[in-house]
Each structure stands twice: as C-alpha cells, then as structure tokens.
C-alpha cells in the first residue's frame, strides 16, 4: 500500500520544535523553528536530582516533552488532536488511516529502536518526535527533524519504537492539527511568550530551576566531590552534564542559541531594540556554556589544571551571563513596560 503525501522535509536542531515548525509551515503558516520554540516559552534550566538517568540527575535546558506543541499551539490559537493507544495494532492502523486521508502525522517514538539512527546516537529516550508523511510498501516515509534528509523505517521497527514501555512511554502517541490559524498576532503573543519565559528563569519558586538552578548545580558539583564515590564518578558526571547540554537536538549550548535566534526574530518583527540587545546577550551566555563544556571535558579527562571549584566558577559565570539577559527582559510585556516603550 503506497501513500505519499506532499511534504517538504526541513532539518532542525530540536525534534519537537522542528516538528511544530514543519507542521505549521506545511499547513500554510510559515513559522521558523526558533519561533516555535520561543512562542512556547520552552527555555529553562532545571537540575532535577530525583529524576535519575543512568544513576545521574536529570539536567534539562528546555521544558518537558510535549510542552512545545501544546504551549505554542495554545498561544497562537491552533488546535491539535493527540491520540494514545493501548493496543499497538490499533495504533498502527490509525496512523495508516490518517496517512491515507492525506495527513502528515506527528509521532512520538523511542530513539533506541529507530534503525535509521547511527549506532553511537542510540540511547533510550522515549520522547523523540518525528513526522510520518507516507508509506511505501512496508516502509514508512519519515521526516525526522534531526536528520538532513528524509528517512525510511520498516513498520515493525516503527511499531516497536512507538510502543516501548517505561519512563515517558509514548504509548503510540500521534498528533495532527485540527485547526491552524491563518496568521499570528505577533504584537500580542510575543510579549506574552517572553514574559512567561522570564518568569521561569527569574522567578522560579524552587532553587533548582531557572538561574538559581544553574548556581545550585555549581554548588552541587563541589559538594559531590566530598565523598570518595563522588570523586570516582566525577568524570562520568561531567560527561553526563555535557551530553545533556550538547548532544543531539539542543542547537548548541543547551538551546541558548535557538532562543537567542528567536529573540532576534522577535526583535525584527516588533522593531524592538531591547529584544535585539537581549539576543546578543544570550549569545554571550551561550558561548559561556560552550566554554563550560570544553573545560568540563578537559577536567573529566584530567587534561586540565582547573579543579572542580574552577569549573563551578565557570558555571556561575554562565548564571551571571544569563541573569544579564533576563534582567534586560524583566517586566517585558507587562502593561507599564509597554507604555514606557510606546511613549
């Protein structure tokens, strides 16, 4: 059974914002990846010691999976249908039916079981997003945002990837838009989105989230080396942090460059110099994160004079740089600030 729906693949940095951007663009509302990311106020920093990945704390640079699609669509007034399945057969049949009706379908899947991922990139991450746009015999035609070109996936593998169990299990989730508006009222939604993001970074109620979270991690790094076991595991812990920040799908520096790109686009759209300045400032912060990754790798391989305290200072410097950005954007979008720029 062959169905191939008209669709143009575009590579992006991150899977979910990429799917969102491609989906909207496909349906006649061109939105760039950074814009999709920014409209969802998806940037964050979170150090979550309770959630363990390979025995190490989860460090997140963006909001949790599904956030981008739900938040961005709500903000621009689009509606998406999300469906989950208990039964794998029904889940696959529903996908086929949607494809036959000429739709492109968003699918959540586990990276590990997708055969088109190179061996080194295969890890157990259940919340990867991709677009299915057709079928050719037993193969599904897939636009995986992380890849340069469209890929193919045999149906048995896609089925396995969609229905693995465990943390963040996809449960065969698929989604497609039900309604997409013709235009976006940027004057209204951009300030909202930026304001919401400022709140996450500056005013988190928990010390492990936002800019405070970065400082918390710096302190925790030093604290972790007080025990023998902590010192033994330090190289792995550092590698873990670097991977969370850089590996597949962050666009570099834990989404900082994606968001900076969004701020620049927002500055152009609204003609607001303050946002342009913030974009520049966030680029500097992103560069700080890249430097941190370089130092962390050197320390973990004992190729550096720097000690853990030095590394923590680099991290605190990142926090300071980010504080600059969000200080610029403090009260952005609130009424008083808007009248101030207007007058």
């Amino acid at each position, binding site marked *: 059974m062959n169905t191939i729906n008209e669709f143009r693949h575009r*590579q*992006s*940095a991150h899977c979910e914002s990429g799917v969102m951007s491609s989906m909207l663009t496909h349906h006649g509302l061109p939105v760039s*990846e*950074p814009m999709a990311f920014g409209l969802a106020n998806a940037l964050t920093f979170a150090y979550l010691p309770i959630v*363990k990945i*390979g*025995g190490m704390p989860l460090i997140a640079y963006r909001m949790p999976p599904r956030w981008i699609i739900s938040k961005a669509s709500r903000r621009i007034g689009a509606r998406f249908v999300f469906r989950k399945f208990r039964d794998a057969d029904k889940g696959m049949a529903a996908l086929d039916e949607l494809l036959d009706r000429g739709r492109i379908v968003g699918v959540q899947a586990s990276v*590990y*079981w997708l055969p088109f991922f*190179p*061996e*080194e*990139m*295969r*890890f*157990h991450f259940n919340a990867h997003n991709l677009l299915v746009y057709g079928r050719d015999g037993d193969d599904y035609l897939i636009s995986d945002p*992380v*890849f*340069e070109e469209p890929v193919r996936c045999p149906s048995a593998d896609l089925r*396995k990837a969609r229905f*693995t*169990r*465990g*943390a963040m*299990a996809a449960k065969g989730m698929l989604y497609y838009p039900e309604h997409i508006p013709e235009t976006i009222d940027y004057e209204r939604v951009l300030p909202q989105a930026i304001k919401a993001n400022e709140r996450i970074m500056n005013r988190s109620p928990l010390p492990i989230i936002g800019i405070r979270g970065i400082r918390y991690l710096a302190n925790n790094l030093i604290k972790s080396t007080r025990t023998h076991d902590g010192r033994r595991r330090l*190289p*792995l812990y*550092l*590698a*873990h942090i*670097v*991977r969370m920040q*850089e*590996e*597949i*799908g962050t*666009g*570099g*520096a834990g989404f900082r*460059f*994606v968001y*900076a*790109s969004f701020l*620049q*686009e927002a500055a152009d759209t609204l003609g607001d110099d303050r946002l342009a300045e913030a*974009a*520049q400032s966030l*680029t500097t912060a*992103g*560069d700080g994160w*890249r430097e941190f*990754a*370089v130092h962390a*790798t050197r320390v*973990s*391989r004992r190729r550096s004079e720097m000690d853990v305290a030095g590394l923590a200072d680099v991290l605190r410097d990142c926090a300071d740089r980010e504080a600059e950005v969000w200080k610029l954007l403090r009260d952005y979008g609130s009424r008083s600030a808007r009248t101030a720029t207007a007058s």
Partner: protein
Amino acid sequence: MDRRETPQDEDGTHAGVRKLLYAVDEQGRYTSVRSAGWEVEATATRAALEEIARLRDEAWQRAQAGQTSPLEVHMHDCRMDLPLLAGAAGMWRWRVRRHFDPKRFHRLPRRVLDRYCEALGLDIERLLRVPPREGPAE
C-alpha cells in the same frame, strides 16, 4: 557562537550525520549551520559508551562464573540500566534484580521471559544464553 567557529570534527560520534546548530554571521545575524560534530561532545558520548561497555564486561565475567543471569548482560547490551529495564518490562526493580539470580532466572515461566524478550528485542533462545564475550554484532 560565530558561524565560522562552528566545529566540524569529522570523526565524532555522529557517523556522518550532520546536525543543525544556530550561530551568528559577520553581521551578528542568526542563521542555521550544519556541524559534522564536536570533539567535546563526542568525548562525552564516548565516555558514556565506555562506561556501559565496562559494566557489560563486568556482568559478562560474573555470568560466566555463574554469579549472575544472562539477563544482566543482555540489559547492558541493550544500553539499559535497572530502572530502564524494569520500566520497559513493566516490573518492579526488586523483581528484576531477583531475576539476576541464574537459578531463579532459568526457572521463570514463559510469560515472564516473554516480557523480557519484548523489552530487550530478543528471541527466547538468545535471552536464555549468555551472549558472546565481544557483545552483539550490530
């Protein structure tokens, strides 16, 4: 990050896949750039893979000595740890840990073994055998 400084470290861990990054050009404008890989990131990935290989080797030795069941080796071959395997098989961690006992493991009923087969993507013969020393040929 400056567009001209985008790392292009070929022998990374991307296996030829170029990923997309955002960087600024000479005028400070953001564009997307493709990167062949970054040594820093590749080193971190390799460290994680080496750790898995180390744990796997350790488990393999113990499995040879009859101190653990093939299940533990398969778990590492599948790049999983205990919480992941327990999640994927839909069992409590302590129950999975009990199945690392070779005697218990080989007494398990078919329906429990099937859940492990499903979680690890193995057939039953392979699940019950300790895999070869070098690990699965993939």
